[in-house]
C-alpha cells in the first residue's frame, strides 16, 4: 500500500507528465491516473482537486474554463513553464533514483 505522502508525490509527478503534451480536465486526469497506475492510485473529487489546486497555487499548472463548439464549458488544466521545469527535475531525479535502485539490486544479485 502506498503511503499518503508517496501517493501525493507520485501523483503530482503523474499529473505533470499527463499534462505535458495536452491540457486535460479533472475527470480525464483521474481516469488516466487510475489506468496508468493499474488501479494502485485512485483519485476522486475530494482527493484530486485539492492536489490540482495546490499545484495551481504553486504555479505548476493553470486551470481555465474553455468552451468548445457543441460542448459545454469545462475547466482544463495545462502545464506552465514552471511546471515543465519541475517535471524535468522530477524526471531526472526519478531516473537517478531508479538507476541507483537498479544498481543496488544488481549488486545483490551478482
Amino acid at each position, binding site marked *: 500500500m502506498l503511503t499518503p505522502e508517496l501517493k501525493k508525490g507520485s501523483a503530482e509527478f503523474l499529473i505533470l507528465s499527463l499534462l505535458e503534451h495536452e491540457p486535460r*480536465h*479533472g*475527470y480525464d486526469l*483521474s481516469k488516466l491516473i487510475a489506468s496508468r497506475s493499474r488501479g494502485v492510485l*485512485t483519485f*476522486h*473529487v*475530494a*482527493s*484530486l*482537486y*485539492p492536489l490540482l*489546486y*495546490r499545484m495551481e*497555487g504553486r504555479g505548476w499548472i493553470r486551470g481555465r*474554463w474553455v468552451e468548445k463548439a457543441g460542448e*459545454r*464549458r*469545462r*475547466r482544463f488544466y495545462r502545464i506552465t513553464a514552471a511546471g515543465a521545469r519541475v517535471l524535468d527535475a522530477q524526471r531526472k531525479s526519478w531516473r537517478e533514483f531508479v538507476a541507483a535502485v537498479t544498481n543496488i539490486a544488481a549488486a545483490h544479485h551478482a
Partner: protein
Amino acid sequence: MPDWRAELRLRLALLALPPGEEAELVEEFAQHLEQEFLDLAPRVGRLEAERELLERLTPEALREIARERRPARPEPLAERGFSMVTAWQRLIWDVRYAMRRSRRRIGFTMVAVISLALGIGVNVAIFSLVDAVLLRRPPVPHREQIAEIYERQPSFPYAPLSYPDYVALRDAGQGLFSQISAAEYAAVPRDFGDHEETLFDELVNGDYFPLLGLKPQVGRLLGPEDDVANGAHAVVVLSSDYWHRAFGADRGVVGRQIRLAGRAYTIVGVAPAGYAGTFPGIVPALFAPIRMINQLQSAPYDQLTDRDGHNLFLKIRVAPGVSMARVRALAASFTADMIRRYPKSWTATTSMLVIPETTIVVNPLLDSVVVPAAAALMAVVALVLLVACANLASFLLAQARDRQREIAIRIALGASRWSLVRQLLVEALLLAGLGGIAGVGLSRVALGALLHADLPLPLPITVDVSLDARVLLFALLAAAAAALFVGVLPALQATRPNVVEVIKSENTGGGPARRVTIRSALVVGQIAVSLVLLITAGLFLRSLQARELIDPGFGDAPAGLVWFGFPPDRNAGPRQQLLLDDVESRVRRVQGVEAVGLTDHMLLSVESSEIAPVNVAGLEPPKGESGFSVDYASADSGFFSAAGVRLLRGRGIEASDKTSAPTVAVINEEMAKEFWPGKDPIGLTFRKDSVTLQVVGVTQTTKVRSLGEAPRPFFFIPLAQSAFPEVMLVAQIGRGGDADAIAARMVGVLRDADPSIPVLQETTMARRIGAVLLPTRLGALVFGLFAALALSLAMIGVYGVVSYAVARRAREVGIRMALGAEPNEVVRLLMREGLVMVGGGGLLGLALAFAVTRVLGSLLSGVTAADPLAFILAPAWLLIVGVAAAFLPALRSARTDPVRVLRAD
C-alpha cells in the same frame, strides 16, 4: 441522475467561499461526479453509487479544498462548530439516503415497519398500563417514614380497620405518629334535580392530604379543620379527573355547591392532577370528610362507631426519630389491649401489620397478583419484540449477503467501513423509528379499545394511560434497542467480506457457511420463544377452561342485578321493608321476570363479604378463636329461586321469617357436612355471635369467594332479621331473555318507585360471574394473541430461511433431478434444514417453557404449570406449522424444471 449541483452547494455552503468561486467549484465537481456516477452506477446500483460519491465529500476534504484555493484565508468556522455542524449534516444525509432506499424497496419496508410496530406497540401498550397502575406515583416526600396498617385475621390477611379502631390507634400512637391518615371508599348519589348519578368517592380524615404532602390545583385540600365534629363538614374536594369531566376544568368551581345524598356540599378545591386516590385505577370523583360518612352513605347503624365494618385504609407517618420497630411494638401492645377490651371484634388470633410504604407497590394483597402478572406481561411482550427483531435481523442478514458485492466494490474504491456500518445502522434506525411511531399509535388504539371495551368490572376502574414522558422514553428505548438488534449484526457482517474474493466470484456472496448459521440461530431463537408463548397461552386457555367448567352452583338462568341503597328516612325497620316490598312487587310485574329476590351480599362478590364467628354445640372452635369463621349473607324469600340456588332439604327463607319470628338459617351442604357430619341438621341450632339460629333448610354448596376455592361452608339468614345499608335486587328471566334490558328496566322501576333511591350498580348475573373470570379470560386472550403473533413471525422466518436455502441450492437440485432424483427425495433434502431449526428451536423452547411457566403458578388455577396437555399440544402445533413453512418452498423447488435451472446457470 442525482442533482449534484444542489448537493454540492449544500456541502460547500459551510466553507463560506465567495459566491463566484463557489459556483466555479460546484460546476467543476458536478461535471466530475456526473461522469463518475455513470461509471459506477452499473456496477453497484444507482442509489449506492450516488451515496458512495457523496460520502467521499467529507467535511475534511472540502475544508482542504478551501484551504488550497485560498491559502491566506482564515478558517471559515471554528474547529468545533465546524465538526458539529458537519456531523449533523452527515446524519441528515444518511437519513435522506436511508429514506430513499426504504422507498425503493417499499414492500420490505412495509413488512419491517409493521412487524416492528406490532412488537413495539404491544410493549408500549403494556408498559402504559404498568406505568399507570404500578409506576406513576405522586411524589410523596420521605416515603420511608410512611407505613400502611392492616389487621391480620385467619380469614383475611390484610383487613382494613374500623373507624373506632382507627380512633383508638390514633390516640395510642400520639407522639409516635406525626400523622395518621384514614380513607374509605363510598358510592354516593349526586342529585342534579331531575336525575341522580352515583359517584365513587373517597372519604378521608384530616391527616390524609397533609400526610401525602399534596398541593391543591385550585382552592384548598381537606385538612384537620374538616375533621372536627361528626356530620358538621359539608365540604368536598374534586378529583382532577372529575373536575375535568364534570366541570370542564373551570377554575371558578371553588365555592360552588353540589347536592350529595340530599344535602348541599361546598366545593373547596381540586386535588392535584397526578393524584388518583389511594388505589391507582379506582379514581374517585370526590374527596369528602370521613366525618360525613353517615350523611353521605345511609346505613341502619352509626358507621363512625361500628366496630365490625372493616373499611378504613390507614397510613401513618412516623414522628422524627421514631423507628418502624417502635411502631411495630406499639401495634403489638395495642392489639393485645384491643383483644382484651373488645373480644367480640378482636379475636385472639388477630394481629396487626405495619408495612413500610417503600415495600408496597399497590396494596399488599393485590401486589402478590398484580406484580407477577405485570412482570409476566412485560416479559411476554419483550419476547414478542425480540421475535419481531430477530425476524427482521435475519432478513437484513440475507439482504446484506446479497449486497456484499456492492459493498465490496465500495470498500475497494476507498469507502471506510465505518461509513458503511453507519449507513446500515441509520437504515435500521429509520425502520425502528417508523416502527416506533406506528407502534405508539397502535398502542393508543389498542388501549383505547381495551378501556372502552365493555368489561365486566366489579368497580368503576379508570386507568389514565395518557402518554407521559416515561412511556415515550420507554418507546424510544424499545425502538433504539430494536434498531441495534436489527442493524448491528447485518452491518458488521456485510462490511466484513473478503473484498477480493467477493469481487472475483461472479456469484452474489462469499463465505456462506457462517452467515447462514447466524441466520439459522436467529430463527431457532424465534421458534423457541414462540413455543414458550404458545405454551403459556395454552396454560391460560386450560386454566380458563378449568374455571369455566366450574359450576358456581347458582345463577344458571339469566338475571338482571341492581345494587342500591336507601334514602336516610327509610334505611331501617318497617319503612325500609315497605320500600323493598313495593320495589319487589313492581319488578315482579315487569314482563319476562320469573322470580325476584334480594340479598345484602351477593355470592362471588369481589367487593366485600360478611363473616361471622359461628359456634356449634359439641364442637371446639379453632385455638384462640371465639368461633368458626363462616361466610354468610342475608336473603329474602325470593332470592333462592331468583338466583338459582337449589334447595336440597327443608325450606328456604320465607316471608314469615320476620323480625319478630324465631331466628333461622338456611345452611349449605358443606356446612352441614362440616359441622354435623352424618346427621340431618334440620331443626338443629348454632350460634352466630350471640344469636341462636335454627337450621331450617340445606342448599347446594355454591362458590362463595372465588371460583377456584374448595367447598366453603356458608349460610343465609332472613333479610328481615338483619340490618343492611345496601341491597342487591335479583330478577331472573327465562332462558334466552335479555338480562341487560331487564337490568335497565329494573333501574327504571326503582326510579318510578322513589327517585331518591341511590342506585349504586346495574349489572347482570352473567357479568357478575364474568368479572370473576375476567383475569383468566384476559390472560388467555392476551397470551393467545401474543403467541399467535410470535408464531407467525417465526414461521415467516422459517419460510424465509428455507426459501433462501432452496434458492442457493437451485443448481444442486437441478443436477440431482437431471440425474434422476425423485421430487420427494429433493423435498426431503431441502426441508431438512428447516426441520432441524424447528426441532432445535422446539427443544430449546420446551426447556425454556419449563423454566418460565414456574413463575406463572400464581396466575393459574385448575391446572398445574406443567400441564401435560399444554406441553403436548403447543409443540405439536408448532411442529405442524413448522413443517408446512419448510415444505412449501421445498415443494416449489422440486417442481421446477431442472433444465431451466441449469440453463439459467
